[in-house]
């Protein structure tokens, strides 16, 4: 998740197309296979389904941070993004090395069928293992709101640079299933 978060930070920090493509290409080159595929899928609009409602996630975050609902609400209105608000409000986590993007996606798939009150401890547990940027991305996966400003064209350019068209076709297959 660390590398994926670093990619997100780099993409977010620049408005220059060349730098975005370079960041993507570098990431794709070194990312393990399953992370690469998930990244392609996420960036081309295949979002995981919502696992927990935004309202519930917000309530859990407030509880975990020891803050009243109204203050979480006010914070949200100033930050403007729920996943980010939650990421910033929670106490500092202890980022765990070696848990990748695909690890967390599988983790979420594993709890998808549980009722909310059983999802809750699993989500709180995950939060403790992520830093603020990683949490933001994780929360977006949880709420099904994953949207990153990477155009299809940009993605294709980065892909072409790294692996050629085959992988692009693979990404499309992944999107379709």
């Amino acid at each position, binding site marked *: 998740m660390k590398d994926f978060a670093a990619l997100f930070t780099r993409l977010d920090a620049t408005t220059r197309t060349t730098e975005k493509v370079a960041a993507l290409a570098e990431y794709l080159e070194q990312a393990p296979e399953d992370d690469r595929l998930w990244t392609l899928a996420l960036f081309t609009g295949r979002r995981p389904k919502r696992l927990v409602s935004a309202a519930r996630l917000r309530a859990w975050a407030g509880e975990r941070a020891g803050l009243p609902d109204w*203050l979480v609400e006010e*914070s949200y209105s100033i930050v403007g993004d729920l996943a*980010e608000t939650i990421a*910033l409000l929670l106490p500092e986590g202890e980022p765990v090395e070696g848990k990748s993007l695909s690890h967390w996606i599988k983790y979420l798939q594993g709890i998808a069928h549980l009722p909310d009150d059983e999802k809750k401890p699993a989500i709180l547990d995950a939060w403790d293992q992520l830093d603020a940027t990683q949490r933001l991305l994780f929360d977006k996966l949880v709420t099904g709101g994953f949207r990153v400003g990477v155009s299809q064209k940009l993605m294709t350019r980065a892909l072409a640079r790294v692996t050629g068209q085959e992988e692009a076709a693979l990404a499309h297959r992944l999107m379709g299933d």
Partner: protein
Amino acid sequence: MARDPLLIFTPEGIHCPEGGFHIDPWRPVARALITHGHADHAREGHGAYLAPHAAAPVLRHRLGDIRLGTLAYGEPREIGGVTVCFHPAGHVPGSAQIRVARGGEVWVVSGDYKVAPDGLSEPFEPVECQHFVTESTFGLPVFRWPDRDQVAAELNGWWKDSLAAGRRPVLGAYALGKALRLLTLLDPSIGPILTHGAVEATNAALRAQGLSLPETVRVTPETDPDAYPGALLLAPPSALGSRWARHFGPSSNGFASGWMRLRGVRRRRAVDRGFVVSDHADWAGLNWAIDQTKAENVYVTHGYTENFTRWLCDKGLNAQVVPTEFGGEVEDDAVTEAEA
């Protein structure tokens, strides 16, 4: 019979009727006690000024030939039946909280403050009181500052990455306080540090009073941009993207502010990199400081006043919002997209 309060809030600013003085007033008054040299706290036109010794060079630099008396931190002074005393606020070098006491009644006006030591400013000193006047610039729980080492690693990493990408790192920060702190975080082994005149003027004032800062080179119209390969430019935020900066070729613009904690602000400012560095207390810092004072009455002057006051009231304190003209928008940290 109840006496009048020791401090009252008037259109001129925070006023002590019995002592005949104001604290950080925003309209001209006869006698002003000043917490620190930022423009929204130390204004022109007062008859006489009283400030900590350590604030004098910056005040003279900013306000010119004023009638200025100074006191050491912790040195009490009687003014018309009340005792005043300056205590470090940790905000910028020379900044103070002002303790005002009459008999057993104690008020503390904290101006702007920060509780984590920055290696330059005299560290914040909690002062017990019954009435505490606090800022709340970053009075929301989303504001939490990373530690010094982390910020230093980010800054120096960005410096190296920019050079590797063929770009000149230009770091924007306010001259008094912020730019200084960044100087202490930058690693001069990477390259020279070039400074804008506005930054260098303040540096000079503070070097003169004995603060040790890394070597800097002041940029003048004669400065040859090619003479300093590997250099980083340190400048006021207004210089980002200006002709002054373009003179040095393609840049990577960095900006240091507490607001950089928020992704939306980073994006609106369209800087290449944001660094979370503030001269104000974060959420935990504000709460810790208020706890330490043991004050039951808290007056919240500027920032997220409504939210922070409600939070304090929820905790059982007698807190209220006090409208002031402290903005911190210009000289301070609290610069948002409103600034051109």
